[in-house]
């Protein structure tokens, strides 16, 4: 390919970049490109005439002011420069000049692409230029600025830039090297954290920040190397924000002085280890930038190449783009008022401008729906900090540069505000106080018994005195092996009053577990009942007291005089770890009492509080929820059975007048569902819950159905004492995110989200939740090593709180700070996986699965079977829930890299002995499982059909009741199957529609035998729904299955009909007219929707079919919208009037090739017919088309799926469509173009030319002509357009 090809003597070929801009202009959507504006100010030292003269001089000098673009037949554009075409110099008012220039519009076909003017005001003069981005960019305008300056000062400037286009030679040789980088799965596109549920809409936001003067000054003096410095800082920030160590983003460049557009981007790959020094990252950037620029390629080629793969990143070169630009040096008295901006590509564009006055401005332009504005603002701050740190200490590790300031960390990690001072006494001391003050007030209700505070205290005292006689005192563990109830509470208080530490043991738990606890904790006394004695291990060296024997009999009822120290042990709680033996967590009195008092204030508790605690006594949360009301002088209703039905729970709440309830999240859902069904939920003041992630749908349900104004989501590992974090909200609150927020810390604690280097994560960035402050446990009993491993020094406490030697607990839970400073839960650290360079939290995907109707449990795993890593989702759901539906739903909700490659629906999760999910027992995904072999055929007909199906799908196990498409059948396979069946049953009008309706051997055979084959041209993709029908017109060689994803996305209420592709019909009619192709579609629509509203969708050449159908049906149906999806015209290949060119002798060679090939092909008759139907020009175009093909002509026809057949259909369609003229129609058109199609500069139909109600196209970036129909971003935009069109229906 030569750099500049002369076309038809009219001008030179456009560069890929210029073509892309033109294609955007063509469909009415110039973004991401903008009109390029230069505005120079000259001060009053110059006279108006001098300024005019200089402006005139530069207009004469620079070729851009004489340039024109022209559209050739077939839509392609070329560029020419002619002396007589120079634009004039206008005069404009100075006020509002920049906006006026930015708002200039240009006619690309033959019109000027530039506008220039001068203006004057009190301060002097202005020289302004506006440029269409197809004509030039900053490189051109820099040359213009310098030319103007030289003309004004009379200095000899550089000669006018020559008219050479950017060299494009040999670029294709560079592709393999780039491909290697872009296809390396280890290197992922770096992104900033997206807003939950955000999508990349066209709307852009903007943020700007000037760097501190000292920093700006240093950077401005740096020279050419300054770009690498910004790229290194950006790489470090992105690495820190994404957790990726191997990443890429795009870097932009533009020629310093140019005559044409030269701006482009290239990917920059960086490998940033947290330990690499800032200097090492900088060196890497310098090397990579140099390497990349030595093999520069137009970015369009790279993007087109990558987007051929389905599932490629939407922004394969980078979602973040960096441009570093320095103002051209201007003489005294001249300055820039406005400089041109680069194309606002990708999710985030960062423009660094080094101004001539020494300022450095960071400017971010970002997809507004994807990012919180505050996040972008902080991103700019992070960049500045990393730049500063890298300059101040080049040896500092990249992973240790602080992104957050101390103040930010202080605010984010802070607990709920609470100025109160806690009572220094221990829990039981505070409780017994109420026995003195309100002895007759109810304290406990359980099993029909009601105990007053006085009764509770007297009984606990007597037992405590007895325990003292047994030697119980400080640091002595006392097991309480009594089922939940008043007596269990009394026994626990007795152990505390005696100075001991209680160890709760559930008598119903497995004996092996309980025996381990009794010996591991070293209990010296056991309080239990006679009936549990058999459950104690033989030879236990502990005193055993049975409550049935009234062990406190004869002991004093007064409080024992046992002083309690704050650092003394209060309890040991055993955690049910998923592996290994349970670990005992020891908690001291001081932190416990503080925690409870702090919590009581957050929960707004009082002596009137009456709580129904549902959490078991084997969890610390279960104890918090009775201690809390008793410490306030209130009461608790302790459920006596292990499980109450929702009915029983509500009855108890009502009977005893409860106002608080604390409930495991899993049970809460049942309660809410019951309340929803019966309307029997009692009025409560507060529900608190916790124990597992709470999905939005569940939260909405309980927020709506449980009648309580206050809801609290509690979170906390046992190691950090009960519920160190809570999220407290009013009912009806909505939250963004997979799970309800964990909230913020309670009491004298701090909650941090830290990365692997123990550095605080910025808001939105995933890290591990650490809990610091005084409210943490002492550690694990008998496990000093494990204690040291999990409780680590808190490096922030000295600075934030002045506390030295403080510890924090690493929770093993993943979270991220939300904008409001609360923390969101994202799953377990050890479940986090890495796939294709992306860090993925399966919890997020699981939450999305759980939101689907019918799904009750979900699990997502990274499987590595047979060497290939893939994400697999497991969902427990009724059989009617289909895997494909779930898949479509996830595709609509999650970023591409998070969508599992397969979903398996299960009746239930396999479990192991501990009742935990047995991950190893989860089945491999594959072709749908059935019980045993597929069902055998009944009768000859079924057997014959089954044989064909098995052979064509390559699935020998297929049975007669298996779904064709589930068993691996694809569109082209379907066609082959149909063709073979038609041969066997001649005379049947079987179409692919029949296969859709009757997708099993049995159903289709029945249809065949009954002679029910419809020959229909329409398929009901969704037959139900109250909205008007959407009719989908097929492109070339597509089946209607391509529309299934869109149909799923549009939702249950949107009926969709797909028409069969004319080219998939086996009977070929030559030279049919478009009018005839649509005739059956039109009939169908008329029958179904006459006089009613409906909408059309035309994809690819289907757009022309939709247009023709609309024309024929005009006035008969109420057509609300035609959605035109990437509809191109024929381009120059077959456009009428586009005369092809041949090199000398080339035409003859091609014709000889064609003849030789016709001698070989088995489709000779079809080809002869087709070629015979061509007129002379069309035949020339056909020869040219063959000559342009890189591959030799195929002769593998006439099978439907053969390349030759496809080729024939393509040419046949070209003949059909080249005769079709788009008529003028007054219909609403919403059009959508694939970014890739624009990038190829293909000629998209501008529907505004044929309908007054056509909107400019919406551009869907990161997808191509084939993939757009399945692209979620397109789905979102199409749905929005359809909703607008159906408004008021």
């Amino acid at each position, binding site marked *: 390919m030569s750099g500049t090809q002369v076309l038809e003597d009219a001008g030179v070929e456009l560069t890929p970049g210029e073509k892309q801009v033109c294609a955007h202009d063509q469909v009415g959507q110039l973004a991401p490109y903008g009109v390029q504006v230069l505005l120079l100010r000259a001060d009053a030292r110059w006279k108006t005439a001098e300024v005019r003269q200089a402006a005139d001089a530069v207009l004469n000098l620079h070729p851009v002011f004489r340039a024109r673009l022209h559209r050739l037949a077939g839509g392609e554009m070329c560029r020419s420069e002619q002396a007589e075409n120079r634009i004039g110099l206008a005069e404009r008012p100075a006020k509002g000049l920049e906006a006026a220039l930015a708002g200039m519009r240009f006619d690309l076909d033959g019109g000027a692409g530039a506008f220039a003017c001068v203006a004057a005001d009190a301060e002097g003069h202005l020289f302004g230029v506006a440029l269409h981005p197809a004509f030039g960019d900053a490189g051109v305008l820099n040359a213009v600025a310098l030319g103007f300056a030289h003309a004004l000062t009379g200095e000899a400037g550089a000669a006018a830039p020559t008219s050479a286009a950017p060299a494009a030679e040999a670029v294709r040789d560079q592709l393999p090297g780039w491909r290697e980088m872009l296809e390396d799965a280890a290197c992922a596109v770096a992104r900033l954290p997206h807003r939950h549920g955000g999508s990349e809409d066209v709307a852009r936001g903007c943020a700007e920040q000037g760097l501190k003067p000292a920093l700006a000054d240093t950077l401005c003096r740096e020279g050419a190397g300054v770009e690498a410095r910004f790229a290194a800082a950006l790489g470090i920030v992105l690495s820190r924000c994404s957790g990726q160590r191997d990443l890429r983003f795009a870097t932009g460049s533009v020629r310093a002085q140019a005559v044409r557009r030269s701006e482009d981007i290239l990917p920059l790959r960086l490998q940033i280890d947290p330990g690499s020094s800032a200097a090492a990252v900088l060196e890497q950037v310098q090397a990579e930038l140099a390497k990349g620029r030595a093999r520069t390629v137009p970015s369009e080629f790279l993007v087109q190449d990558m987007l051929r793969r389905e599932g490629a990143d939407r922004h394969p070169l980078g979602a973040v783009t960096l441009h570093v630009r320095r103002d051209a040096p201007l003489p005294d008295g001249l300055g820039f008022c406005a400089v041109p901006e680069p194309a606002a590509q990708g999710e985030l564009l960062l423009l660094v401008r080094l101004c001539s006055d020494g300022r450095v401005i960071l400017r971010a332009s970002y997809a507004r729906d994807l990012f919180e504005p505050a996040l972008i603002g902080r991103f700019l701050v992070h960049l500045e900090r990393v730049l500063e740190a890298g300059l101040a200490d080049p040896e500092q590790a990249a992973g240790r540069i602080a992104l957050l300031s101390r103040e930010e960390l202080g605010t984010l990690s802070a607990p709920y505000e609470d100025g109160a001072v806690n009572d220094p006494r221990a829990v039981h001391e505070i409780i017994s106080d109420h026995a003195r003050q309100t002895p007759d007030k109810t304290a406990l209700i359980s099993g029909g018994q009601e105990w007053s505070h006085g009764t509770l205290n007297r009984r606990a005292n007597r037992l405590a005195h007895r325990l003292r006689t047994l030697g119980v005192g400080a640091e002595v563990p006392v097991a309480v092996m009594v089922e939940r109830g008043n007596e269990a509470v009394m026994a626990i208080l007795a152990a505390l009053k005696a100075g001991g530490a209680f160890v709760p043991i559930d008598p119903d738990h497995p004996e092996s577990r309980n025996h381990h606890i009794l010996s591991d904790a070293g209990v010296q006394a056991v309080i239990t009942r006679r009936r549990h004695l058999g459950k104690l291990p033989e030879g236990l060296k502990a005193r055993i007291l049975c409550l049935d024997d009234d062990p406190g009999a004869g002991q004093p009822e007064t409080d024992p005089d046992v002083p309690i120290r704050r650092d003394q042990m209060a309890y040991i709680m055993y955690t049910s770890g998923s592996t290994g033996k349970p670990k005992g967590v020891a908690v001291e009195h001081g932190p416990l009492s503080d925690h409870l008092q702090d919590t009581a204030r957050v929960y707004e508790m009082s002596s009137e509080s009456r709580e129904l605690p549902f959490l078991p006594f084997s969890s610390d949360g279960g104890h918090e929820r009775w201690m809390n009301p008793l410490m306030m002088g209130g009461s608790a209703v302790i459920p006596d059975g292990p499980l109450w039905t929702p009915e029983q729970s509500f009855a108890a709440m009502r009977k005893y007048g409860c106002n608080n309830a604390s409930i495991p999240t899993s049970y809460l859902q049942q309660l809410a569902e019951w309340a929803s069904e019966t309307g029997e939920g009692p009025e409560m003041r507060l529900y608190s819950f916790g124990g597992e992630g709470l999905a939005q749908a569940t939260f909405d349900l309980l927020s709506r159905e449980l009648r309580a104004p206050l809801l609290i989501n509690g979170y906390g590992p046992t190691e950090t004492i009960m519920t160190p974090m809570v999220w407290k909200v009013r009912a009806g609150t909505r939250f963004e995110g997979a799970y309800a927020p964990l909230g913020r810390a309670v009491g004298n604690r701090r909650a941090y989200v830290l990365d692997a280097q123990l550095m605080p994560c910025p808001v939105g960035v995933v890290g591990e939740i650490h809990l610091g402050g005084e409210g943490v446990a002492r*550690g694990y009993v008998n496990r000093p090593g494990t204690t040291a491993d999990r409780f680590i*020094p808190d490096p922030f406490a000295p600075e934030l709180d002045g506390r030295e030697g403080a510890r924090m607990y690493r929770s093993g839970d993943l979270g991220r700070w939300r904008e409001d400073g609360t923390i969101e839960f994202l799953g377990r650290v050890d479940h986090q996986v890495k796939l294709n360079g992306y860090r993925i939290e399966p919890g997020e995907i699981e939450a999305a699965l759980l939101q689907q109707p019918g799904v009750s449990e979900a699990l997502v795993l990274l499987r590595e079977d047979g060497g290939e890593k893939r994400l697999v989702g497991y969902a427990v759901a009724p059989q009617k829930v289909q895997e494909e539906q779930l898949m479509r739903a996830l595709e609509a909700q999650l970023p591409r890299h998070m969508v599992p490659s397969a979903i398996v629906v299960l009746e239930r999760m396999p479990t192991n002995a501990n009742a935990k999910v047995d991950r190893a027992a989860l089945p491999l995904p594959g072709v749908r499982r059935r019980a045993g072999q597929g069902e055998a055929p009944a009768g000859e007909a079924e057997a014959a059909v089954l044989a064909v199906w098995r052979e064509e799908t390559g699935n020998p196990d297929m049975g007669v009741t298996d779904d064709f498409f589930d068993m691996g059948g694809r569109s082209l396979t379907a066609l082959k199957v149909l063709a073979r069946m038609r041969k066997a049953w001649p005379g049947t009008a079987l179409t692919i529609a029949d296969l859709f309706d009757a997708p099993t051997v049995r159903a289709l055979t029945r249809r065949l035998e009954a002679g029910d084959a419809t020959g229909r041209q329409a398929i009901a993709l969704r037959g139900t729904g109250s909205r008007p029908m959407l009719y989908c017109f097929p492109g070339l060689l597509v089946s209607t299955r391509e529309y299934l994803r869109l149909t799923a996305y549009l939702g249950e209420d949107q009926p969709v009909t797909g028409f069969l592709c004319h080219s998939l019909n086996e009977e070929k009619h030559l030279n049919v007219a478009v009018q005839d192709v649509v005739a059956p579609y039109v009939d169908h629509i008329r029958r179904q929707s006459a006089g009613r509203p409906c909408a059309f969708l035309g994809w690819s050449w289907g757009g022309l079919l939709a247009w023709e159908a609309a024309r024929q049906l005009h006035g008969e149906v109420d057509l609300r919208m035609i959605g035109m999806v990437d509809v191109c015209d024929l381009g120059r290949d077959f456009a009428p009037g586009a005369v092809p060119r041949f090199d000398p002798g080339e035409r003859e060679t091609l014709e000889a090739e064609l003849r030789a090939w016709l001698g070989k092909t088995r489709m000779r008759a079809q080809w002869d017919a087709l070629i015979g139907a061509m007129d002379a020009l069309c035949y020339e175009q056909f020869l040219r088309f063959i000559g342009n093909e890189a591959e030799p002509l195929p002769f593998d026809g006439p099978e439907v799926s053969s390349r030759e057949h496809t080729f024939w259909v393509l040419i046949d369609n070209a003949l059909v469509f080249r005769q079709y003229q788009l008529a003028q129609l007054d219909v609403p058109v919403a059009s959508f173009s694939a970014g890739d199609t624009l990038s190829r500069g293909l000629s998209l139909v501008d529907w505004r030319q044929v309908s007054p109600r056509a909107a400019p196209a919406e551009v869907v970036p990161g997808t191509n002509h084939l993939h757009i129909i399945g692209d979620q971003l397109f789905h979102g935009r199409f749905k929005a357009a359809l909703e607008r069109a159906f408004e008021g229906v």
Partner: protein
Amino acid sequence: MTQPGPDQWICVRNSEGRWSVWPADLPVPAGWQAESAPADRGACLAEIEARWSDPRPEALQEAMA
């Protein structure tokens, strides 16, 4: 994230006599004392397992003595 990045760790101990581990290449937080030479994390934890014999805070040990 389960095993923080750096390879070298040290044993540290605070004024209450509680032990932990800390990356060897970072400054020891205020209130903590280095108690060992750098080693891998497992070795440090094993050393703590051997040396931290009384889980009670030092003040409590004294009070109970």
